[in-house]
Each structure stands twice: as C-alpha cells, then as structure tokens.
C-alpha cells in the first residue's frame, strides 16, 4: 500500500494537526490554570505527556509507536506463567 505523497499528506492533514496541537496546548493551560497546579507538576501522567511532546519534535520517525511505549508499562521477562494442561 503506497502512502500519500508527503506534500499531499501535508495538505490534507495540516489543519487537523494544527487543531490537535491547539487542543493539547489548551489542555495543558487548563491544568496550569487550575487551583494547586504546582501539586500536579510532577504527576507521572504530566511527565509522560512532556516526554511525548518531545518525541513530536524528533525527525527520526516512528513517533506514534514511541509515544505508545512512553504510555506503556514495561514488560517483565521471566514472569511466572501457568503451564498448559
């Protein structure tokens, strides 16, 4: 399956990207305006949001997958699994 040419993709999704970035900015402003904003400054969810935003500025691709992993618990190899019967 051939993806859209980059210029076409930019034309088609620019306004959607702009709107979603504004939504994120507004959500962060909303949190910041709330009472006791400093109390959630280091909340792990906000920390992850900041990490995810940093990924957006990285040009090396795979951003969606990398952001998914930021919001994921780590796999624990060697966990004790039940045996088939």
């Amino acid at each position, binding site marked *: *399956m*051939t*993806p*859209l040419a980059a210029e076409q993709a930019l034309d*088609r*999704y620019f306004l959607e990207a702009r709107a979603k970035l504004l939504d994120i900015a507004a959500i962060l402003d909303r949190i910041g305006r709330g009472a006791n904003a400093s109390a959630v400054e280091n909340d792990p969810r906000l920390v992850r949001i900041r990490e995810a935003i940093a990924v957006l500025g990285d040009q090396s691709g795979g951003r*969606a*997958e990398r952001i*998914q*992993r930021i*919001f*994921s*618990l*780590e*796999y*624990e190899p060697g*966990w*004790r*699994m*039940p*045996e*088939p*019967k």
Partner: protein
Amino acid sequence: MYYIDPHIHMISRITDDYERMAQCGCIAVSEPAFWAGFDRGSVEGFRDYFRHLTEFEPKRAAQFNIRHYSWLCINAKEAENVSLAREVIAMIPDFLDRPNVLGIGEIGLNKNTPNEATIFQEHVDLAMKTNELILIHTPHLEDKYKGTRMIIDMLKNDRRVDPARVLIDHVEEHTVRLALDGGFWCAMTLYPTTKCTPARAVDILEMVGTDNIMVNSAGDWGKSDPMAVPQLIQEMKHRGHSEAAIRKVVFENPLKFFRQSHRWQEWEIPEPSRDEVPAETQA
C-alpha cells in the same frame, strides 16, 4: 462495498444499528463474549448470555440479512473469581455445537494478574482439546504492551497452539508487529479515544501491509461507533488505496480467518464489483 465487522457486541446495541450497518454494506458480524459492565454472579448467568449470543442475536441480525457469529468465554475482568471462571469454562462445551459459534473468545488479560493468566491458559486448554479458533482481547492503555507480550509468551509456550488459528485483537502501533511476527492474525479496533482512529489504522496498514490483519468497531455499551468500519473504508478511499486492498482488509481477511472454524458453513458470498478485483486478475 460489502464488509464484515469481526468484533462487535450487538447485545449492547439497538436494532437500528443492525439496520444502519446493513445499509452501509455489512453482511456479517462476529460477537465475542465480554464483560457486561458488572461481574455476573453465577454460571447460570453465563448460560443465559450464551443462549442470547447463539439464539437471539442471529435471529435479530437475520432481519437485515446480516450473518451473526459468536465466540464464547468468561472475560478476563471476571477471571479474578477463579472458581466461577472454571465453572463457566466447564459449561462452554454445552454450546460448542451451535452453528454460529466460531471459537473461544475474547479471552486474554485485563490488568495482567496471575489469576487472569491462569484462566487464560485454561481457556486455551479448552480450545486445544475441542479444536476451536481463539480470539484474544489484549489489555487497554498502559497495560497493553506488557499484556500482549505475556499473552504471546503463553501461546508460544503451548506447543499445541497454531498461531494461524489465533486472532490477537486491539493491536496498535506498539503491538501490531508482535502479533504478525509471531504468525498470528490480528485486528485493530476503531475507538475514538482509547484505541485506533480510522486514520491511524490506515497508517498502520500502510506500514505493515494487508496480510493477516482486519479492523473492527468493537461497538458495545461504552463510547463506540458501530459504523466505524465504513469510516475506515472512507479513509482508505480518501488516500487513494485500491478497492481490492480495502475489500481484503474489511471482507476477505475476516472471512479467511473464520473459514478455519470446523463448524463453518459456506454461504453465498457476494461477488466483488470490478473495482474490487485486482487489475491483474481481471479478464
């Protein structure tokens, strides 16, 4: 364009949804057993649920010429009650001769607990003893990556399991390759906030291709849209993908997976339009 929604909980939807889906080209659905929104109190509650899935829903769907298939299990959310889960697993074979049952599902993990893993393995044991297909629910949000890895660990640890007879559902960007690289089938769920949007699902198709992958609405009693598969069709058309590629994802792939069920009975499959046939195979 005809399509199949391979994961939708019609018990939670109104009859008008069947009608709208049929109007958009839906000709078959499959409905996995799932959590009712509360923990059921007895095995008899599940017996009634399985009767609903195998008796009432096929009739309701048939009013709109939609074929209704189902999958049976106790959902991972209720696996913490191990004794009830075992009673339900012991009762499932009473329904395995019903013509619309495709297999065992949607089994899986929810919060990745030891009890969930135990009951998951016991469902797999049942599926192996009865030669059933398996439909797997992978956990939500932060639990998904870890839970998907754990589920694949258990499946690979069981030499009886043929990955080609297992569908791993709710895959996203970080889990789709785990499923496909393991030889499993997989599905993407189109949910507005917590899973894939149609646009992201098409992105994933562009990255991994159209083999062994399908999409579903997983419409249920929560925020979900039974018309999600047609939205994906529109997104694929919007990006210029061929009718043949779209038909493969929304129709041929689920049909190919379902046909492996030993109870499968063929029905008259509508012929694709000329646009839905790859150019190289047209006369």
